[in-house]
């Protein structure tokens, strides 16, 4: 039989205890009802999310001539160059974040469960540290030896990526942790070790593929943060999208609305690409006779 970690004892009780009355089988009606409820809820959700976007669209079309807010933005080369720059920084941030957090979350779950509240507290700190305090703290710390990063563009980029990894800590860690809960890492690790695998192999070839959904979630969130973040990019003087947006907004009314929708759509598209790329192998590693 399978290990007991992911099977709550109540379920064993449910398997053996028959409630009075006719046992109900899942008929086609039940499935239909469930799917109908799902569709209904989905439509409500879509309505809630779409309406504000529609409102913004309507407003952006009030410009005269009607599409000028859009054409102004689409024809501005800096909109695209800063967007590209933000995406590049985003990809680097996601990679660093994964490399840093997956082993950490794995190790804490596996060997150091008592350290979990400490790690979780650290990952939730970025919520309560005002970004302006964080960026000025970073600039002050890293303007001087031993690590004067702010003096060069590359150094500032490094600092930017590290700052964004910090900002995405809560989301990435929580997503990875939720994913780790669903797999039996204890058994998997022991099985791999008994086959002679080292930690790197375990993480890269066994744990990571099982965390596909988590990592995708975390990647989406991180990308969105990097593209939308303003304060840190601003003070580190890097040509990021949100700062350029702010610069051109000034006293414009319709163009910022158009570009907000543009960036929404483009980021959504980029995430679609990430989702497709990450689709890969759908299989999950199961242990024992789970069927």
């Amino acid at each position: 039989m399978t290990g007991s970690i992911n099977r709550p004892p109540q379920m064993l009780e449910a398997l053996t205890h028959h409630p009075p009355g006719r046992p109900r089988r899942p008929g086609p009606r039940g499935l239909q009802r469930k799917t109908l409820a799902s569709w209904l809820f989905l439509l409500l959700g879509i309505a809630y999310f779409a309406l504000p976007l529609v409102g913004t669209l309507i407003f952006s079309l009030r410009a005269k001539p009607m599409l000028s807010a859009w054409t102004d933005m689409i024809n501005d080369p800096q909109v695209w160059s800063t967007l590209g720059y933000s995406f590049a920084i985003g990809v680097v941030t996601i990679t660093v974040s994964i490399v840093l957090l997956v082993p950490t979350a794995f190790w804490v779950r596996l060997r150091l469960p008592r350290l979990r509240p400490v790690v979780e507290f650290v990952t939730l700190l970025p919520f309560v540290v005002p970004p302006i305090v964080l960026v000025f703290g970073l600039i002050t710390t890293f303007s001087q030896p031993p690590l004067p990063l702010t003096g060069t563009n590359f150094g500032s980029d490094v600092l930017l990526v590290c700052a964004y990894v910090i900002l995405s800590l809560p989301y990435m860690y929580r997503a990875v942790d939720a994913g780790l809960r669903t797999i039996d890492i204890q058994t998997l690790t022991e099985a791999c070790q008994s086959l002679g695998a080292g930690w790197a192999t375990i993480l890269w070839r066994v744990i990571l593929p099982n965390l596909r959904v988590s990592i995708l979630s975390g990647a989406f969130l991180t990308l969105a943060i990097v593209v939308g973040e303003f304060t840190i990019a601003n003070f580190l003087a890097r040509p990021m999208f949100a700062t350029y947006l702010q610069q051109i907004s000034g006293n414009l009314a319709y163009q910022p609305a158009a570009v907000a929708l543009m960036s929404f759509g483009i980021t959504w598209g980029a995430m679609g690409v990430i989702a497709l790329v990450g689709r890969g192998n759908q299989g999950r590693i199961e242990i024992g006779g789970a069927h």
Partner: protein
Amino acid sequence: MVTTPDARGAPSARRGHRRVPWTFLGVVPFFVFATMFLVIPTSYLVVGSFRDQAGNFTVQNYLDLSRPLTANAYTTSIEISLVTAILGGILGFLLAYAVIAGGLPMPIRTGIMTFSGVASNFAGVPLALAFIFTIGRTGFVTVILKTVLGVDVYGAGFTIYSKLGLEIVYLYFQLPLMVLIIAPAIDGLKKEWREASENAGASTFQYWRFIALPVLMPSLMGSMILLFGNAFGAQATAFALTGGFINLVTILIGGQLSGDVLGNQNLGYALAMGMVAIMAVTILAYSWLARRAERWQR
């Protein structure tokens, strides 16, 4: 059942005194990174909160936290964060369940997941404006409701410039965040359990009560903590929508730290430290609850 791996990896949990240094090595990179890029910059926050504007040591900033305005700001912030965390948590969970395990086609799931990614960070001035254009006094939905359906929401007392309005706007990024974070957990709900429970004659309610919810509870709570923190730390959206009319801690902090009007930065630091303390308490409460919930899994 516990095997002892080769000496290259960390020793098993059954070894003796040499375990401690090696085991902690696994989390060293994380803590070094966090120290360099989070703790050290934040230390200015801690130090500054104990200073007055002349640079001398004082606890006056912390004493000032109990003034009615700041105390009220904390309770309002906590209230709004709790409401949106719970509501966003429940609704987000339902939406995630609907698209992952609710019988809907796969492209819809991908669409909602990716959309949630973008929407979770759609905040600040663009979000506030989007809602103003939609359900503000001159928003298109308000206007349609009035002209087509004869329903005057603003006449009935609703206004977007209220706590309720702020909560509605906050849900726009809280809900998608929940969807994304709970997705792996829902994905991990093996459908064999559902089939087995139905074969055993359990009703849907019993399935949820005895199997699905206990399994999901730690993830649900962890996600709601995240939502709480997310709302608690939100500043740009609140400021853009309320302009300081709703008393929130993050807005007070912004005023002290970066206003155009001479403020007291040290008070701002103390306010932020207050937020850190509240997050710490929240995590302790969550850890305790999570440990209780996880007992059912062992």
